[in-house]
């Protein structure tokens, strides 16, 4: 009986401990934002395994659905998470982030994480007038992504 209870507790701890992300941008991929975004995508699972990826998330915010305060807050959260980046490619317009590509430290030591952000609202001539945020997880390194998907 004691062994059964110990095994039960162990299995339950495995189930509940999975899935913690801990990034500031995580809020944009929650259910709360599904009504505010123009479009969002969430793919997670074994179909991405052949490409050494496990998760793809994106949201696209338009000028119509996103007040300036909101996208400035988004930018702040991206830049906050970007502080963790081990690699980055960034372009600024003035003091604001136009686009950024960031490789974050691996989750659990082996799952790489990437953030891509682009804000076309900073360029009136840019089309489409959208803010895009993409988050990817997977075992592929940035170099491997280049090789795998050429």
């Amino acid at each position, binding site marked *: 009986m004691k062994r059964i209870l110990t095994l039960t507790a162990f299995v339950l701890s495995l189930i509940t401990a999975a899935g913690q992300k801990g990034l500031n941008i995580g809020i944009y991929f929650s259910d709360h934002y599904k009504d505010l975004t123009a479009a969002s995508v969430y793919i997670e699972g074994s179909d991405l395994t052949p490409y050494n990826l496990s998760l793809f998330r994106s949201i696209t915010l338009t000028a119509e659905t996103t007040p300036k305060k909101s996208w400035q807050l988004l930018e702040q959260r991206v830049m906050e998470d970007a502080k963790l980046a081990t690699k980055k490619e960034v372009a600024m317009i003035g003091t604001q982030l136009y686009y950024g590509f960031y490789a974050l430290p691996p989750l659990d030591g082996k799952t790489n994480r990437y953030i891509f952000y682009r804000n076309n609202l900073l360029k009136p001539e840019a089309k489409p007038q959208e803010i895009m945020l*993409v988050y990817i997880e997977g075992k592929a390194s940035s170099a491997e992504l280049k090789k795998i998907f050429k």
Partner: protein
Amino acid sequence: MTTDKKYWLALTERYFDGLTTEHEERLLRQFASTPMAQTEEFEELRAVLAYLATGKALRRKKSAGFRLTPGLIKWSAAACIFIIGGIGIYRFMPRTTYIAYIDGQRTTNKVEVIAQMHSVMADINANTPTNTMEASMNNLMNTLNTKE
């Protein structure tokens, strides 16, 4: 069962003296329900036996509610393991989740979601200062689309 009244009177006396065996007490209980015992001589015996029988029945009723038997424990443990195992298998079995929100409308259609992802990556590739990474990710989406 003997019909000798003297025997039963003697046995009754021994019962009240606390000298009877279990077997003899069982015989007395059986005797108490027979016509021979329905006389004044055995009235006290019947009263005591009835009182004891009632008390026993009440005690049995109180303790009969819920009993944790070894069989119940084993089956409960097996059920717990089965349920937790099922949750674990469901949680960890390979599967892919496809969800997209487009203009507030939710879709889980694999083709639609992949198309939306393809659109995102094409947008990045076309409208961002290019580098190898975006081109590579766009190729990823093309490859997934071809696989479908």
